[in-house]
């Protein structure tokens, strides 16, 4: 992740442009920060077993007495919600990126959207809306 970021900066300073292969590599790195965070979290969680608070509280003593069926149910619920949200998030990211491309192709700028009262509070500007209808 750091290498890609550093190399991308260096390349842009030298050549003043982003070639397609570098942009594709950046897309591929989208979840690298997330993976790094999770990996660090795994290391701390697993590394301090069998304690929940090192030397103070054992994991076995802190486990809940709620029926395990309930826990499984809520875990399944959270997992399915987060899966759906992940799909929605990624597709929305691409929609927003494509929208920006269309705005550029039509020589519109972000400032056009911001001056539009409908855009205040995250609303969709009329120009943007018309563009979507055209597409």
């Amino acid at each position, binding site marked *: 992740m750091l290498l890609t970021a550093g190399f991308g900066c260096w390349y842009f300073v030298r050549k003043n442009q982003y070639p397609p292969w570098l942009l594709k590599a950046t897309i591929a790195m989208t979840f690298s920060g997330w993976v790094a965070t999770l990996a660090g979290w795994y290391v701390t969680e697993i590394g301090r077993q069998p304690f929940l608070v090192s030397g103070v509280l054992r994991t076995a003593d802190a486990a809940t007495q709620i029926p395990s069926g309930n826990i499984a149910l*809520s875990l399944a619920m959270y997992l399915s919600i987060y899966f759906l949200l992940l799909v*929605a998030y990624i597709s929305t990211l691409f929609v927003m990126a494509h929208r920006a491309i269309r705005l550029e192709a039509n020589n519109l700028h972000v400032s056009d959207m911001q001056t539009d009262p409908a855009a205040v509070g995250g609303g969709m500007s009329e120009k943007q809306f018309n563009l979507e209808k055209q597409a």
Partner: protein
Amino acid sequence: MGLSFLIYAILDGYDLGVGVLLPRDNQAQRDSMIYSIGPFWDANETWLVMAIGLLLIAFPSAHSYILQGLYLPTAIMLAGLILRGVAFDFRTKAPSRFKQKWDLAFKLGSLLATLTQGYMLGRYVTGFEETNAALAFALLSAVCVTAGYCFIGSAWLVMKTEGNCRSALPAGPDTVIC
């Protein structure tokens, strides 16, 4: 702690109520209703976090007893609140053909949150009794809390909106909910 629960019920009550009251057939009304709570709902929900945090710090054994008794409703309420918070952001950024779906998610999330909050209140008041009467009371409490939230939600809309959105309100929560 009691104060934060009270403030939470009043403040988040009106924006949950507005969410439950969203009409399904009128995009412009939905927009103005959601914009009316836009700057406030997030701060309102913070009172719940503070109330639960205070419960944990001030009364740890009550905290563990209550939240173990109410584990599933709490999980469902959280799912509702997640749906609501996410739908709020996605509805303006997703393609416009999905906007109605996100609005529906906002409405359902609000409804889930109000119903489970009412149910939890009912269970708490009856001391987590497992009798049929206690469960029936909790279900009744779920409906009544939702109705109460809808009521303060409509009061908020009367204060904040004008025109069609406002004149549509006296139709009453029971006709608008479904």
